């Protein structure tokens, strides 16, 4: 489904990919999926040596491994990043880091384990497990940004609010994944887990409980995530030129 929607957008997709990628050399803090990004000439999709950004290799497995942080339903953007911290501008590298230190600081005191320890800048949890309607509330991009800045790699939730999901995809900060069951009821904060992304068959493996959970295919967002965000996707689709003006 993802491939066909991309195809309908631009039937000359493979031809577009053949042109060399001359993206600017600025190493954005947002290009998180491959920290050693070096522009390489784009080849056609069937080739095995694809674009350097590892998010854009659909045939390969993508794996996140680490500790889980479990939250409940309707975790809104004010709990993810309270409004008082929105004066920090995410495109400013120093303020980007500061945003990470405040990730999930708005959670009520009933959450005894804090996502980021007081005084720390990064989290020790790389996988966030959520319930229904994760990320509801504001359209503030600071929400997925602060999670990514803190060091989270993926969110596995039962369902998402649309703006949060969209912002996660557009920025590439965290992978927003859908579980088929209430994973938040079966995992505990501190469980060791692995998220394996595969073509059509992704899983969450909880090593502490030994249970495995199927994750839903990423759907229409797939091409955008695979490309590495909305700008890369638009360049691939021939919507905007490869080189910045």
């Amino acid at each position, binding site marked *: 489904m993802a491939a066909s*929607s991309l195809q309908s*957008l*631009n*039937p*000359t997709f493979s031809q577009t990919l053949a042109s060399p990628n001359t993206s*600017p050399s*600025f190493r*954005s803090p*947002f290009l998180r999926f491959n920290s050693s990004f070096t522009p390489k000439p784009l080849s056609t999709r069937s080739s095995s040596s694809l674009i350097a950004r590892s998010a854009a290799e659909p045939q390969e497995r993508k794996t996140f491994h680490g500790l889980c942080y479990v939250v409940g339903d*309707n975790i*809104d953007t*004010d*709990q993810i990043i*309270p*409004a*008082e911290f*929105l*004066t*920090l*501008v*995410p*495109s*400013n590298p120093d303020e980007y880091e500061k945003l990470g230190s405040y990730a999930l600081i*708005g959670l*009520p*005191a009933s959450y005894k384990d804090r996502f980021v320890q007081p005084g720390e800048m990064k989290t020790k949890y790389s996988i966030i497990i959520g319930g*229904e*309607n994760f990320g*509801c*509330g*504001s*359209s*503030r*991009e*600071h929400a997925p940004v602060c999670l990514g800045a803190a060091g989270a790699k993926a969110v596995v939730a039962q*369902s998402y*609010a*649309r*703006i949060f999901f*969209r*912002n996660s995809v*557009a*920025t590439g900060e965290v992978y927003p994944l859908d579980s088929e069951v209430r994973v938040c009821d079966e995992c505990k904060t501190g469980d060791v887990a692995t998220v394996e992304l595969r073509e059509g068959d992704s899983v969450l493996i909880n090593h502490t409980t030994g249970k495995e959970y199927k994750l839903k295919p990423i759907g*229409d967002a797939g091409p*955008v995530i695979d490309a590495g*965000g*909305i*700008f890369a*996707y*638009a360049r691939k689709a*021939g*919507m*905007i*030129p490869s080189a*910045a*003006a």
Partner: protein
Amino acid sequence: MASSVISSSPFVCKSPAKGQKDLGVSSFRKASQISIHGCQRKSISRKIVSVMAPQRSSSTSGSVKTGMTMTEKILAKAAEKSQVVPGDNIWVNVDVLMTHDVCGPGAFGIFKREFGDNAKVWDSEKIVVIPDHYIFTSDKRANRNVDIMREHCREQNIKYFYDITDLGDFRANPDYKGVCHVALAQEGHCRPGEVLLGTDSHTCTAGAFGQFATGIGNTDAGFVLGTGKILLKVPPTMRFILDGEMPSYLQAKDLILQIIGEISVAGATYKTMEFSGTTIESLTMEERMTLCNMVVEAGGKNGVIPPDATTFNYVENRTSVPFQPVYSDANASFVADYRFDVSKLEPVVAKPHSPDNRALARECKDVKIDRVYIGSCTGGKTEDFMAAAKLFHAAGKQVKVPTFLVPATQKVWMDVYALPVPGAGGKTCAQIFEEAGCDTPTSPSCGACLGGPADTYARLNEPQVCVSTTNRNFPGRMGHKEGQIYLASPYTAAASALTGHVTDPREFLQ
């Protein structure tokens, strides 16, 4: 036609991709314009009825033209297609992009990063920059963000920048407006049939004007700044038909809280909420804005109301830009149908800590409160203050708790001080508020709706109970994590201020 057919942005590849047809503009004018509410007048049920229609598949064969909803039509036109169905991912031309002080710096930062330091925006007259969130504060970063926007606007020659430089006296700033969603409407930027995006979730407010309006993040906004386009998935439409005469004690806020309580905070996720019916037709533009404002609280992608004489009258008094209204086809597909007999509804509140935690106001009369807040894009418009003043005047009493008044814009503030309240013998809102013992109406901005910097006026800095005309009550929304926020209409808020408890406005209005 408000939007140009071919984008003039230097960042959009000019030659259409091979295989894509160049669809002429004339094909859109043939689309049916039957007003949807014309078909609904025949059957008004006596009871409140919620009816869920079975999900109809929205597939269409290539050659047969299916009826489209308002939202589908607006997006089809903006994508230069003759037909779209829910689920289609399409590139859409944007008519207006709005941003403010909180997200503007980030959006422009991304724009420069991706398009280059010397890049120019796609259209300097289609971007509206409205500082409104953290204005009247000594927070240095907040103040810096307004300065950053000034620099960007200067560099890009942005036509609409509602700047503020003198924080000590908002009236000394001729350009400053206040809350972005109210300012957009008041300044004539909302027009039927158009696509309006904003870096704020309550951008959906503008759907009241019969346009597609939704909130986006900084990255999407940065993309739009450069290209004037955005990738959107066409949403299916849920239809809400509201019929019956609006009781004198009920307001649009009660209607939307009723609906959100019905379908939950995720009930409209990825969907359009289309409102029609005789009640909707009787609402003023400001009331329609309140209704569409909280669509996002149900998870909705956008809210939309068919434009009519009320709409045209409002819009034509504020802009001379031509527009083309659209209406849902009689044979359009809707994914759900809800009907309400409004004459049977009662004032409601949303209890802590969720906008869908609905309860009848009269059933919360034992809840003791500490303060009342009247303000924000949801409940800080001129008519919201008029309503509160009307109730205070009818009661002739003094408030029992601190009552904070935050007009949304300069214009609202001026109306509060200048306009006579109907039935009050010539008194203005401001006079009535003073007599009732409310706080003096403060400088217009988003204020404490979302907490804000520590020194924000009326911020909830203690675990208090607040009845508020704002839009969200999740933990910590107005500041303190243990603060208890009851969302309510201006009538309910005013009534509650007078008793010191959550109060049904009928206590004072009948």
